[in-house]
């Protein structure tokens, strides 16, 4: 399969990646190569093989339910672009 210019625009918008009109040809070409690879993978007969959701064949370790993190707000907020009253400030979002 190959990406149409519309599909590429939609994808970059969803991923919040700015791709200019000039770049779009190259980006589409690269993505199409990845998709070609996936086509090849999908051609493999996987009948009777249990799907894996992770490359490693191990299971999730669990942690005990205890509070191990202390308040490091001032440390974290020292590198934030904008803060006020303990809040992180971001460009206005209204839903």
């Amino acid at each position, binding site marked *: 399969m190959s990406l149409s210019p519309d599909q590429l625009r*939609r994808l970059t*918008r*969803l991923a*919040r990646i700015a791709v200019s009109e000039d770049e779009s040809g190259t980006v589409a070409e690269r993505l199409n190569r990845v998709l070609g690879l996936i086509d090849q993978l999908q051609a493999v007969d996987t009948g009777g093989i249990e799907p894996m*959701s*992770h*490359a*490693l064949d*191990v*299971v*999730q*370790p*669990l*942690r*005990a*339910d*205890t*509070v*191990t*993190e202390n*308040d*490091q*707000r001032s440390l*974290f*907020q020292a590198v934030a672009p*904008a803060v*006020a*009253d*303990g*809040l*992180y*400030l*971001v*460009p*206005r*979002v*209204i*839903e």
Partner: protein
Amino acid sequence: MAWEIVVGIETHTQLRTRSKMFSGAATAFGAPPNAQASAVDIALPGVLPVANAAAVEMAVKFGLAVGGVINRRSVFARKNYFYPDLPKGYQISQYEIPIVAGGVLKIALAAGEKTVRLTRAHLEEDAGKSLHEDYHGMTGIDLNRAGTPLLEIVSEPDLRGAKEAVAYARTLHDLVTWIHICDGNMEEGSFRCDANVSVRRVGDKNLGTRSETKNLNSFVFMEQAIEFEARRQIELLENGGMVVQETRLYDPEKGETRPMRTKEDAHDYRYFPDPDLLPLVVSDSMIEKIRASLPKSRGDLRKELIESYGLTPAQAQVLTSNIETSTFALSTFAGQPKEAWPNLANWIAGPLAARLNRENKAISDSNVTPEQLKELYGFVASGVISSSAATGVVLPAMWDGEGGAARIIAQRDLKQMSDTGALEKIVDEVLAKNAKQVEDYRAGRQKAFNSLVGQVMKATQGKANPGQVNQILKAKLGR
């Protein structure tokens, strides 16, 4: 032709853990902004999530309580969207393989019991909060709630109308608080429902197009929102219009729902398995351990308290109002003789409950333990102190930390008078001082007798045995 209103409910249940789903930050409500937002919660680069065992256990507990299938292997997935209250750019959730599949919830309706099928229940993390007050034209973000464990419980579209939907939500609320996986505090957002509503002509097999009304955090709003939404859709269809599949918000002030302003594509979440998290495996031994910890259902326990413990329906009701109270009551009853149970039940439902209420404490934080209550009851049963001294004096003193029953009884000199001679002397004094009441009593006024008993009790500072006082008085008054 009549319309049928079809409802399915999705519930975000905040799990009762101390720490977050994937980080060791606290989940307590009401902390200063971002004081409980760790490096994982604010999505600093290089951090990794590690799943909380207690959240997994609570999800399994729910699955067992509703008779669902516990998937021995489930998968965490990324739900991708950009919004600053979720700084990673995705929410960790479960998609293709949730931890619980299926199950049922039985709800009581006027027409009888109805079985509502559940689709699934999956683990996920909550988002933070956006504050849109004016911060120099910016939005403030508090990430304390980000990463709090949620169990999203999804019902099939089995509910017909607002009343059934509310009955379902109430029953579910009752269950998750009873099995102790959620504190149920709707005002603090611990139990939030989304209602999927559609309408169709009675007899139609196919479902109509649905709308989803989000974040209903009270049963009253839920009923109003569903009723409004059904009316809106029916009017639309009767006027030749079409229902659009969309997300809506309920405005309690105006009593109406309105579409959320969302950009197109907002629902293309591009789910994929989270490479940071390995498959979640639940072992048979873990499931069996959790199954053993499941409490009896509230209804069964209520029945048992009435039938096997000899309590009244009213007492049983109070003692099963929440799981903490029933646990406290059962451990108080344990090892006590049958005749003690109704008395102990009265103490718990009466003076102890009143004190807890006054001090705004949960029974699990009670100053008086079941062991102390048992000890206290022992002194009443053996006649050492009166029941009124026990609840009126010893219980409050115990609460205030004056020690165990034996010590308080000794210190406050509460032992009932066993010396009949001394008691008779006091009765004589009371009779001598109250010639009027004696006369009234002899004239047939029972009230006068009660007044005399009261005087004797007062004179003995409550230490006399009221039964004995009655006997002596009657003997002396010649009746």
